[in-house]
């Protein structure tokens, strides 16, 4: 193996300031009394169940957990969580959550958003949250369609998508949310799939442990307006060739098993271009296959991995944690500035402030 694997310099506990639950929790504790109103068969159910099931594992006082969402089908999510929650306006959840997280470090703040909410109307807030590295966990439900407005193409839809608003096919090229996040200086970027509860949970676990903004793209099926959009990744036979499962410290291998117990395909660096490419290890050997390094300070390889996916067929789609690095966290820095201001100038005294330096007195 040619690559060495980076260790995260310090495993800062992201939620160290959040009070812990005093009693053992179960999934039931995180279910609200509200009836879930997504379409029957929607992928959102699976994600909700996974999140509710995963929360007790964190062991946080649930009154210190907040879900903030924007607008869209997935953004109804907070209503179904028995935590604090806000269903806000289209695209703005990362901004609202930034205010909450940066003013309350004792909270575990989660953003639930969709491909239209996060990447179209709210694109600006998403990239700025990522670059600031606010302590937020952003769950981006990507179904590659507008569901709540009944089926227009979204910023992740494939080119040529036939929808109500694009009867002759959509013209615009899609975003790859993982590539976008990496370009926006994200410190944690992962991708998972709604139907793979185990994988989804493992990604949530890694995201929760990450100090700073974590972006988790969740491929989510809209069975009404874009059914089967991720079939290539879900169908057992197709998935073997289509999905690249990334695990930190493991060689990037996928496909039908080779005699060494790993996949028969591998990702290598093309010595001519520096880019990544997929090879058949049975023909070319496994020696050059990259070992996945999620903690690599440079996002270059993670970006190259994200580009392996074909936007139309989804072949060679990497899932798992692409990037997970330590970077100063915005809300921590903000707090530290407040502390150092007090150290330097003393705790603010209002009377002194109001008087200023230049006063005169009028005697009656």
């Amino acid at each position, binding site marked *: 193996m040619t690559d060495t694997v980076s260790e995260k310099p310090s495993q800062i506990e992201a939620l160290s300031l959040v009070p812990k639950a005093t009693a053992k929790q179960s999934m039931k504790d995180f279910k609200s009394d509200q009836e879930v109103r997504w379409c029957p068969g929607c992928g959102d159910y699976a994600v909700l169940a996974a999140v509710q099931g995963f929360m007790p594992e964190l062991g946080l006082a649930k009154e210190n957990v*907040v879900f903030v969402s924007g607008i869209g089908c997935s953004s109804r999510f907070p209503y179904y969580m028995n935590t604090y929650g806000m269903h806000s306006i289209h695209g703005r959840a990362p901004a609202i959550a930034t205010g909450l997280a940066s003013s309350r470090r004792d909270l575990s703040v989660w953003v639930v958003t969709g491909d239209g909410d996060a990447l179209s109307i709210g694109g600006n807030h998403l990239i700025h949250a990522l670059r600031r590295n606010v302590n937020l966990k952003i769950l981006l439900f990507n179904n590659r369609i507008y569901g709540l407005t009944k089926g227009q193409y979204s910023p992740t839809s494939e080119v040529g998508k036939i929808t109500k608003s694009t009867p002759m096919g959509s013209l615009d090229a899609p975003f790859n949310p993982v590539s976008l996040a990496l370009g926006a200086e994200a410190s944690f970027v992962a991708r998972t799939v709604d139907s793979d509860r185990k994988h989804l949970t493992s990604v949530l676990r890694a995201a929760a442990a990450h100090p700073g903004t974590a972006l988790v793209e969740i491929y989510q099926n809209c069975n009404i307006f874009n059914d089967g959009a991720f079939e290539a990744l879900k169908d057992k036979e197709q998935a073997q060739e289509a999905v690249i499962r990334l695990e930190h410290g493991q060689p990037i291998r996928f496909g039908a098993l080779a005699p060494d117990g790993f996949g028969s395909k591998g990702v290598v660096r093309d010595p001519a271009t520096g880019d990544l490419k997929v090879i058949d290890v049975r023909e070319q050997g496994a020696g050059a296959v990259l070992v996945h390094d999620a903690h690599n300070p440079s996002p270059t390889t993670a970006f190259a991995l994200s580009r392996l996916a074909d936007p139309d067929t989804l072949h060679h789609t990497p899932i798992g944690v692409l990037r997970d690095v330590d970077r100063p966290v915005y809300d921590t820095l903000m707090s530290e500035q407040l502390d150092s201001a007090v150290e330097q100038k003393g705790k603010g005294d209002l009377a002194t402030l109001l008087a200023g330096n*230049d006063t005169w007195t009028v005697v009656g």
Partner: protein
Amino acid sequence: MTSQVSSTAEQADGALVGEQRTSGDGGPGKEVRRLDRVIIRFAGDSGDGMQLTGDRFTSETASFGNDLSTLPNFPAEIRAPAGTLPGVSSFQLHFADHDILTPGDAPNVLVAMNPAALKANIGDVPRGAEIIVNTDEFTKRPMAKVGYETNPLEDGSLSAYHVHPVPLTTLTIEALKEFGLSRKEAERSKNMFALGLLSWMYHRPTEGTEKFLRAKFAKKPDIAEANVTAFRAGWNFGETTEDFATSYEVAPATTAFPTGTYRNISGNLALSYGLIAAARQADLPLYLGSYPITPASDILHELSRHKNFGVRTFQAEDEIAGIGAALGAAFGGSLAVTTTSGPGVALKSETIGLAVSLELPLLIVDIQRGGPSTGLPTKTEQADLLQAMYGRNGEAPVPIVAPKTPADCFDAALDAARIALTYRTPVFLLSDGYLANGSEPWRIPEVDQLPDLRVQFATGPNHQLADGTEVFWPYKRDPESLARPWAVPGTPGLEHRIGGIEKQDGTGNISYDPANHDFMVRTRQAKVDGIEVPDLEVDDPADESGAGARTLVLGWGSTYGPITAAVRRVRGAGQRIAQAHLRHLNPFPGNLGEVLARYDEVVVPEMNLGQLATLLRARYLVDARSHTQVSGMPFKAEQLAEVLKEAIND
């Protein structure tokens, strides 16, 4: 000298204070005259440091104890092309030995640093006024640039004025020749030379400016000393040169002010302090989410300097994120603020609607400027009233509070915070560019006299279900204020979800029920309508016969100064007029309808096309007489007085 006529126009036309004496104060053999008030305008290129010069003169004047009012006026461009008319920056200062209300209509003294400054300002200068010009700049090219074909200093076109030609640049360079500075560097201190000269003319104290210069250039002691030297040279020039035969005294305004300790303060600074004070009085952390915009950015700058008060300032990626972050912080239990100007309000509208629906406290500070669109970023206007009142989708009532003077921005901020916190609602604080940058003396309040704004967060269940279960209902209201409970994350047992979708009364759960929506819309309106605001006070002094006025002038916001000055003129001329000024635009004071009905004629001056008049007409069916001006500049008292006299005599 005719220019220095002491017509105390703001008290009564024609009154005169004048005493001549000769003393050593003004220099050997120089005459000293006493005046009751003076208006000075410093004008120069954007890069000439006129705002700094004005600020320094203001500080000296404030510490001397005069009443004062200022009007900075500058282009939106940071460095507009040098020597051009659009690049002219000016600072007008009115100071007096009695209480004054405006920066003054017309300057008694114009300091013109170049031909452009002269040309751009001469129209405002009354005949007989003094003009101090920097003759060094009156050469062919700078004059041609602004269309002077002949030299106005020589062609007789200024014969109606008392012109003091002073080679400011040459004198400054000469004074600084021992500093070894380049010509360009030395020239930069010419504004300090001018300041020194004017400080001599008006007997201003000088220690403050010298201290200021040494602090400002602490890292460049050479430059600090050069500026101090230029400043002193200007003073000495006044004292020794024949051209300046007279200096003037304007006594401290001892009787104009109640007992107390004073400082000079601008509107944006007072507003920033008001926010810090409100947070302290509410015992909540202050959180500002903001995006830079003229003329509001100074509040962001100021609050950013006070992190030792626990103030968090967040410079967002855009206006929407600014208010979004503030709203998020409000949900978390901060006193949350967003600051902006008109274009920013437009972008924030949807989030303001969300805040109305969430019923969380939030201050939206709008420092109004000329519009529409980008409009006039550095000029003043009051044209966002209807935007604040109605500029949202759906029925989304938001209370509106408007300060009336720069210092009043402090109290208005506290009042806006009171309403937001008590009623759990977003509140508009409508200041404007004139208040923001203008300044006046401020009686520093006693901190222990500030209002108590403490709030009670929800701590436990507030409702009992039929089966006896104790639950928390996020939309169960206080029967008096109609405010809903503020339950912040971290409070055990009160986990709840709020959002922009219509919610069921009480439980806050999503509800599309028609009757519930009707009820919720009306309830949110009733909550705002029921906000306690003091009755409108009317100033209507009865004459000897006991009769009051038949005409009322009603204003709001920053027009208070000019309107009050105009009212003094009208009364000084022996006519009767009543005056009232609105701080609360939504809801209006409870007695407003009754007040309006008392007068035959209601005049409403506004720096828009009649927005308050429209509201009054719709609400009270009163035939309000709208008087409007949208020049980007405040009303002039004299012109307004004429309008009022016309209304009275109609």
